[in-house]
């Protein structure tokens, strides 16, 4: 039950309300009085900082901003399926279509970069039957000698005791299946 207050009490409560110092029950009394007393309502409005927003009611949109509204409504009416927020279906505006197209293009570009580049099929390395060492290694292999355009050859010398040198040759080629 909302408490009934007079204009004097309203004035005191309005002051406290503007400072955020009244309870919900006191506000209910204040608001109830305000609705029935135009003078008190006007008095409160004249000092209420939130009355600043009253001007929003007079805001008018330019006529051009309605372009597309009726087309959207008509499209919704014509569709046999259910339209509505409940179904989570958002209306599609032209800007949304452009955004979707841009997103698709970016997605395709990212996918193209993410897919590993195809390595040209390397010709098979000639098999060397019954040989413990590949001949290419013995002959200081080059890219041409192993006949694989994607191959790289690294040569490393390891110096050990007694001036012993171990030569390591690495052939890196993703096209070679071992």
């Amino acid at each position, binding site marked *: 039950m*909302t408490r009934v207050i*007079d*204009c*004097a*009490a*309203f*004035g*005191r409560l*309005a*002051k*406290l*309300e*503007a*400072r*955020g110092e009244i309870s*919900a029950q006191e*506000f*209910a009394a204040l*608001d*109830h009085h305000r*609705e029935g007393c135009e*003078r*008190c309502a006007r*008095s*409160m409005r004249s*000092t209420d*900082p*939130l*009355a*600043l*927003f*009253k*001007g*929003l*009611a*007079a*805001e*008018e*949109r330019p006529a051009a901003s*309605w372009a597309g*509204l*009726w087309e959207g*409504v*008509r499209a*919704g*009416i*014509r*569709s*046999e*399926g*259910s*339209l*509505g*927020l*409940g179904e*989570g279906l*958002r*209306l599609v*505006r032209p*800007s949304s279509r452009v955004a979707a197209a841009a997103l698709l293009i970016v997605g395709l570009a990212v996918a193209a970069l993410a897919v590993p580049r195809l390595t040209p099929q390397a010709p098979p390395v000639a098999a060397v039957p019954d040989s413990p060492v590949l001949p290419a290694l013995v002959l200081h292999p080059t890219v041409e000698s192993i006949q694989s355009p994607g191959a790289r050859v690294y040569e490393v010398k390891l110096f050990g005791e007694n001036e012993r040198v171990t030569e390591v040759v690495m052939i890196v080629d993703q096209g070679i299946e071992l």
Partner: protein
Amino acid sequence: MDVGRRPPETHGVAPEGEAGTAAPREVDDEAVLRRAAGGELRAFELLVERKRARAYRLARYIVGQDEDAEDVVQLAFIRVWRMLARYHPGSGFDPWLGRIVVNLAIDFRRRNRTRRRGLRVLATAPRPPLDRAQVPRGLREDEIRRVFDDLAGGLPARQRAVFALREIEGMDTDEVARLCGVRASTVRNHLFQARRALQRALQRRYPEYLPRGGRPGSDVEDGHDAGD
């Protein structure tokens, strides 16, 4: 009316002229509604043209974004078309439409709350203080709109709706209660919460908009003379 049916589009509205032109006010809403309920899409277009501004305003208060408000209005009119058969002539089309718009807008805002949280982080970034002396008495509408969106962005949807309907649109408590589908006491409670949150936020973020004295309520009179 069956939901989803395809009504005829272009007959019976010739006396009202083209829907793209100004609507003749002598054709009242009820007459247009009857024709729209009969399946005349052109009559419904006329109705949309007449009611879209208020519908947009209500939606905009609640969802806080132009494009979102446009979506809500569009959905609201689609829903109105489908529910025209349930409308009782003479019961007031504006409150009926308002109820649909407000409910859709509240749903919309709740569903997008996560997104809004992220945006609010940006909205609460420090801003340069305005020089109170340079703030004109009649603030530009877009500045008021920006301040409102900023401050009301943190309010729950229903509090935001109640504040806008009561304090901006000037509806009375019972009207708002009917529109939001809640009791009058609930409306006052929402209004109390909303006002308190907005007052605090205004004091903290936009002190230059406070009344003289720098504190809300510092120049509120102790009530007028009741005998006046």
